[in-house]
């Protein structure tokens, strides 16, 4: 049915291509009903443009034929997925590393390393409990939170930092000739004269703006939005969630202070773990206690004793390096 004459026709619209892709996803899912199959046939017959779009679906499908007919196709697909996984984890690092001039860190052996080497391989990184201030060549200041890593790619036409993991607070220096970009796996940020923090979490990025403004552009959909001072927003590679007032805690850590404003204890402890190299455990019955106040994160002993004085908890030390927080037994 897909004839060459179709090539002479104009390209299908984006909407029609999208419909074809959705039909494909449904028909191959193993869940399409007979009625849906019929509906697809009607869709296909309805216009030449639809047929033209389906022609592309078929061409893409053909590329998979050598794999589909192979008796070891699952081995092929698992090899592909394995590499995808590794590379998703390494993508950020590699991009940064390759621009380090004069460095031969990354031979084939380096490539084979696992993600545990991720932090030390970045341009700048911090260990557990370490907060570091970087003064970059253009006068920009970056505070790197504990267990974070960033790569610097300054070029004649633009200044770029890549957040590989963790969190940073950036205070940009003005430079009218070079824009300031922060890239993350989920999208990029363009600073519009500014002080802001960027935090990379498992499935999204949190941006909080304290001065100036920042433009978010998501990696997948390219959606853009400007976040003004005093606001923060989360985004994934496909969408930007609605902005909310900026959390002062996302800035305070740069001064070594963690601000808790009515958060569950479990959240505070999760945060504290970034600053404590031992093991910090929290019993479930104490997890939901509400916490207020400012805590000196780099002084774990001080922070825990402050918590102990305001909350009905007790801290046990089963052995050095393990601090266990539990609800205080009533006497």
């Amino acid at each position, binding site marked *: 049915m897909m004839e060459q004459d179709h090539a002479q026709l104009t390209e299908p619209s984006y909407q029609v291509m999208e419909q074809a892709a959705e039909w494909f996803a449904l028909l191959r*899912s193993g869940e399409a009903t007979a009625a849906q199959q019929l509906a697809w046939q009607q869709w296909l017959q309805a216009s030449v443009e639809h047929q033209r779009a389906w022609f592309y679906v078929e061409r893409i*499908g053909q590329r998979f034929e050598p794999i589909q007919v192979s008796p070891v196709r699952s081995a092929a*697909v698992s090899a592909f997925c394995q590499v995808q996984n590794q590379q998703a984890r390494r993508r950020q690092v590699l991009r940064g590393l390759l621009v380090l001039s004069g460095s031969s860190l990354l031979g084939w052996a380096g490539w084979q390393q696992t993600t545990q080497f991720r932090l030390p391989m970045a341009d700048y990184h911090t260990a557990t409990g370490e907060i570091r201030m970087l003064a970059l060549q253009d006068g920009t200041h970056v505070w790197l939170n504990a267990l974070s890593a960033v790569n610097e790619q300054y070029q004649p036409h633009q200044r770029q930092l890549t957040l590989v993991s963790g969190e940073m607070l950036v205070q940009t220096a003005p430079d009218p000739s070079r824009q300031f970009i922060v890239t993350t796996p989920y999208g990029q940020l363009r600073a519009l004269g500014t002080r802001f923090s960027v935090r990379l979490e498992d499935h999204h990025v949190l941006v909080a703006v304290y001065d100036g403004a920042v433009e978010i552009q998501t990696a997948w959909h390219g959606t853009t939005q400007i976040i003004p001072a005093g606001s923060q927003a989360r985004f994934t590679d496909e969408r930007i969630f609605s902005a909310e007032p900026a959390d002062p805690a996302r800035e305070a850590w740069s001064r070594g202070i963690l601000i808790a404003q009515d958060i569950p204890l479990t959240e505070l402890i999760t945060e504290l773990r970034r600053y404590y190299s031992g093991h910090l455990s929290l019993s479930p019955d104490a997890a939901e206690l509400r916490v207020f106040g400012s805590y000196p994160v780099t002084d774990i002993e001080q922070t825990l004793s402050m918590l102990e004085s305001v909350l009905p908890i007790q801290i046990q030390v089963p052995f050095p390096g393990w601090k266990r927080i539990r609800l205080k037994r009533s006497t």
Partner: protein
Amino acid sequence: MVKGSGQTAQGCIEYLYADHHGWLKAWLLRRLGNSSDAADLTQDVFVRLILRPAPKGLNSSGEARAYLRRMANGMCIDLWRRRSLEQAWLESLAHQPEALMPSAEQQVMVLQALQEIDQLLLSLPAKAASAFVMAVGCEMSDREVAEELGISTRMVRKHVARVMLHCMQLEARHLAADPGILRVGS
């Protein structure tokens, strides 16, 4: 020295080659740790530059090196990507029962198909690409893919549709650039 933008592309290439060939090869050698790979990629960089000259011309030695280094970076990444895919495929094959082992020629065909698909899916998130390749390559149902990747069937459906759309658009662009392919392909 690299001459100004008044120079023809051809002349430019000659100067570029003479001035920077050795430097680029040494630079690549440091990165790749293998002199034959470094030599191959150095050639590839210049061949690509002949086919597609730098859009704004290269007006100083520093500019030329920055441009060459950027190209070479991209090509290192491609090379590593191809190598790691090949490596993973060979390892995966090694675990297959002897009886199923495909012929050398079939092995190469599968690897080539994987590498082509990898190129197509280059800019996509890993989960989406994996879901698509499992679904289409292994003809797995949404439920099977969902179990394998630990995501919902709804997400699988969404990934498959959006990856397919992405591929279709690349394919359309590709065909628009070279309509002759169609005569052979269909």
